[in-house]
């Protein structure tokens, strides 16, 4: 795989993760359990959409000359490169926050490494995003602990959320040909190398939350390389891309 192609795939992976998760989080608008959560969810979604503009903007610049909007609104599901974890439906508030935590933990470690990327543009985006994601992780971690170690019901719901989401965690640490090329160029770390730090972090928080990590290490995959997304992604895109698809060429 040539460098530009791999670099673009890497950028799509970063930008599609934030785009799809930002979309999911924004679905909560006006429906959160308490006003402070409405604000926090909108804020998180806003940060993620802002990061999407940077990652997809660079992806379009590197290859193909497309805008971030072209990439967000005019690709079909098979061209999306986000991990499956971010496209699963919100479920209850517990599942939404558990998904956020499992993603934030990876995201914060990843961005920390990307701040020393050999590509200055990547390092600059990572530096900016990292400040936001540090806060995301603090908040999602605190909420997971609060609800895990809350009432009997909140504990049961958080355990259920963890059990449901756990099989989607492993995909974040599987390396492929794209990664090999990118790692060789010093642009990004090898996903596999983030695994130990991630599990240590997640285990520490989930222990405080009195939750049990499922034993199975089975991992669903197919999002990062686009081979097999979940059924949910198509519905999400149907909604997200509707105006751009229905009125091609219009400027908004």
């Amino acid at each position, binding site marked *: 795989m040539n460098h530009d192609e791999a670099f673009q795939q890497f950028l799509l992976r970063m930008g599609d993760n934030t*785009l799809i998760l930002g*979309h999911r989080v*924004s*679905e909560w*608008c*006006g*429906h*959160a*359990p*308490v*006003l*402070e*959560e*409405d*604000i926090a969810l*909108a*804020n998180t*979604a*806003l940060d993620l*959409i*802002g990061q*999407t*503009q940077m990652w*997809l903007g660079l992806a379009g610049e590197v290859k193909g000359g497309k805008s*971030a*909007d072209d990439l*967000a*609104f005019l690709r079909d599901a098979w061209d999306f490169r986000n991990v499956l974890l971010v496209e699963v439906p919100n479920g*209850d*508030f*517990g599942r939404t926050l558990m998904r956020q935590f499992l993603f934030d933990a990876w995201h914060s470690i990843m961005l920390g490494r990307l701040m020393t990327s050999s590509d200055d543009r990547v390092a600059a985006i990572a530096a900016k995003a990292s400040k936001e994601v540090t806060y995301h992780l603090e908040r999602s971690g605190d*909420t997971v*602990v*609060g*609800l895990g*170690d*809350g*009432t009997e*019901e*909140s*504990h049961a*719901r958080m355990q259920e959320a963890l059990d449901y989401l756990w099989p989607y965690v492993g995909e974040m640490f599987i390396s492929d040909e794209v990664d090999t090329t990118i790692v060789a160029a010093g642009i990004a770390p090898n996903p596999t190398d983030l695994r130990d730090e991630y599990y240590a972090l997640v285990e520490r928080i989930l222990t405080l939350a009195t939750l049990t990590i499922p034993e199975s290490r089975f991992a669903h995959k197919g999002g990062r390389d686009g081979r097999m997304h979940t059924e949910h992604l198509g519905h999400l895109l149907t*909604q*997200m891309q*509707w*105006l*751009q698809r229905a*009125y091609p*060429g*219009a*400027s*908004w």
Partner: protein
Amino acid sequence: MYAQMVESEASNDDPDKLAEFQARIDADIKIEPKDWMPQAYRKTLIRQIGQHAHSEIVGQLPEGNWITRAPTLERKAILLAKVQDEAGHGLYLYCAAETLGVSRDEITEMLLDGRMKYSSIFNYPTLNWADIGAVGWLVDGAAIMNQVPLQRTSFGPYSRAMIRICKEESFHQRQGYDAIRKMAEGTPEQRKMAQDAMNRLWYPSLMMFGPSDKDSVHSAQSMAWKIKINTNDELRQKFVDQTVPQAEYLGLTIPDPDLRWNEERGHYDYTDPDWSEFFDVIKGNGPCNVDRLAARNKAWDDGKWVRDGLLAHARKKQAGNLAAE
């Protein structure tokens, strides 16, 4: 804004204290939470601030309706930032209401069971993307008309909340105008969306100022107390005068065949909204009343386990800290 038809209360307080209170208000000295105030002043303010706060909260729904369908990343980001601001306004206003001795949970329950109202405008649907521009331009524009004078309102915490809110609202209005301008200057379909939004939202925006002065029974006392600064019709006229040239610039038609400049008055003559529709919406028969309230109730009910869980955890932590001391 967002407080219309706020009923005022009759006062039967000590006449000397009342006179002293009125003298402070007349001298433009702010009333602060610990100061003596007539019961009716307190009750009317709780109702007005509460209604305003609820409007910010319910107002997230029609705008949230388009976040997942926003046509560009930038529009999506702007809309998210705006909705986040609205929720923040709700938060300051609930805090202002709390200084009058009513908790956020208490007045939230009153919203949810229908004892308290929110602005009738949010009982109208957002049906096409241009509605989001129109909400910013017309609805926030009307809100600002109401809120700018309220920065000078007599109750300190309300006045200070309003100063902060007005800054953000004027940004909202500008982004709304920019969004609808883009549509009005766009393809024929986009112009159709913009005109359709204007047709549906014009009269509901005029209704936001409340009933005509001749039918507004609650104004006099509130104006004497500087809880309300201008009459409904004054503000409505100001809004019409400001908005007509903007609509002309956009090439949009205001759905009022009798709208025209009156040289003698120095104002536009316009048709009043259909007040029977307004009272229907207030009574709960607007296009979205039932759904809006159901959505808020569902959010509150579904969120109970979350609130309970976080509270239980906070108590455990507190108990742990105490034990460690």
